[in-house]
């Protein structure tokens, strides 16, 4: 008999498109595909403006994840892959996007995407991805001037949060809110490693800590971890957070408290920053090719 176990780490896939825009009226259609370790996004831009996107979980096969992400973005638009002038692949699976015209690192794409989403005053970007964390400085054009990443350890990443969601049986999307349901802020869990932090959290539960208190301690540890990465490159205002964890209030507000800086809030989905940056790179590259008479 199979047990029907709820997966608390699982978040819903979704797509979006600008229904007020007709892509056929545009001149240049570009796409960015960000194949990350946990999620994949496809963004379609028309003349450098956001038109549609899709966010899916990355499967075991990067090319399939890229295809699935783009198919979802194209859904109900009447657009096909052939209508797209240039595609840029990014993320850890960037070289496995079969229909990409070029691959660009996610560091450069996140900086470009953040510049679009939060404005050209952004200088420091924190990308909290599925399995890595990056601190990036950029100039007013969104060009990277300094970066540092840590992808050796899952502490301070989305996957680490998913592990805890499953352990505590709390939907991953509710962790942030729940972590504030404490009378006073507990000390952070001492372990930075996800595996040890999980063991430590189990011990705290055994000691009678409520879930909200364990979550507060875990979010605080995660915030400390990424804040030290940011401090090592230096904080320059203005500050913006990209990636899935940017949606977790429990981590974001604790990072802001440690650093004494408020992150810029925007109407855009923080998780699409990399793919959006890739789509914007695609436009620039397409225009360069056109100017050379290659496209």
């Amino acid at each position, binding site marked *: 008999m199979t047990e029907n176990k709820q997966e608390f780490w699982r978040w819903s896939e979704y797509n979006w498109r600008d229904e007020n825009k007709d892509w056929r009226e545009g001149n240049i259609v570009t796409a960015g595909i960000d194949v990350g370790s946990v999620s994949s996004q496809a963004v379609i831009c028309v003349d450098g403006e956001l038109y549609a996107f899709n966010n899916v979980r990355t499967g075991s096969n990067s090319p399939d994840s890229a295809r699935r992400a783009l198919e979802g973005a194209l859904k109900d638009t009447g657009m096909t892959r052939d209508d797209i002038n240039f595609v840029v692949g990014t993320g850890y699976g960037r070289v496995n996007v079969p229909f990409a015209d070029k691959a660009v690192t996610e560091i450069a794409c996140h900086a470009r995407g953040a510049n679009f989403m939060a404005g050209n005053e952004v200088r420091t970007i924190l990308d909290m991805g599925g399995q890595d964390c990056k601190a990036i400085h950029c100039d007013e054009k969104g060009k*990277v001037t300094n*970066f*540092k*990443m*840590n992808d050796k*350890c899952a502490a301070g990443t989305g996957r680490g949060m998913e592990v805890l969601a499953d352990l505590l049986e709390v939907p991953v999307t509710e962790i942030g809110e729940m972590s504030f349901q404490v009378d006073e802020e507990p000390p952070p869990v001492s372990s*930075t490693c996800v595996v040890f932090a999980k063991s430590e959290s189990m011990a705290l539960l055994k000691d009678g800590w409520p879930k909200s208190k364990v979550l507060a301690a875990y979010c605080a540890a995660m915030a400390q971890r990424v804040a030290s990465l940011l401090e090592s*490159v230096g904080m320059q205002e203005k500050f913006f957070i990209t990636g899935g964890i940017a949606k977790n209030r429990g981590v974001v507000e604790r990072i802001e408290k440690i650093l004494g800086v408020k992150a810029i809030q925007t109407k855009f989905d923080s998780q699409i920053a990399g793919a959006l940056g890739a789509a914007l*790179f695609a436009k620039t590259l397409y225009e360069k090719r056109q100017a050379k008479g290659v496209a």
Partner: protein
Amino acid sequence: MKANYGYTDGSGDYYITIETEGCLKCTEHDCVDACPQDVFAIIEDDYDDLVAAVVEEHRRSLAYVCSECKPASDPPPLPCVEACPQNAISHSW
């Protein structure tokens, strides 16, 4: 651009920093040959510039890969740092 390649783990910070503005003024790229472990390569970065970078395969194991050039006592100058005429390479540990 200041490119920091490496990682932090339980034992410390292991980053090699390359100031790529220096690479733009360099035509020799001696860092590539100077490293006995082939840690460096010249790549075309995202902005179409030819710059030095730490190769992908070594980025998560620098503490071990670079240990040959970092004996515990009387460490000599690092060959990669010495080879760079622009003083663009530094190690965090």
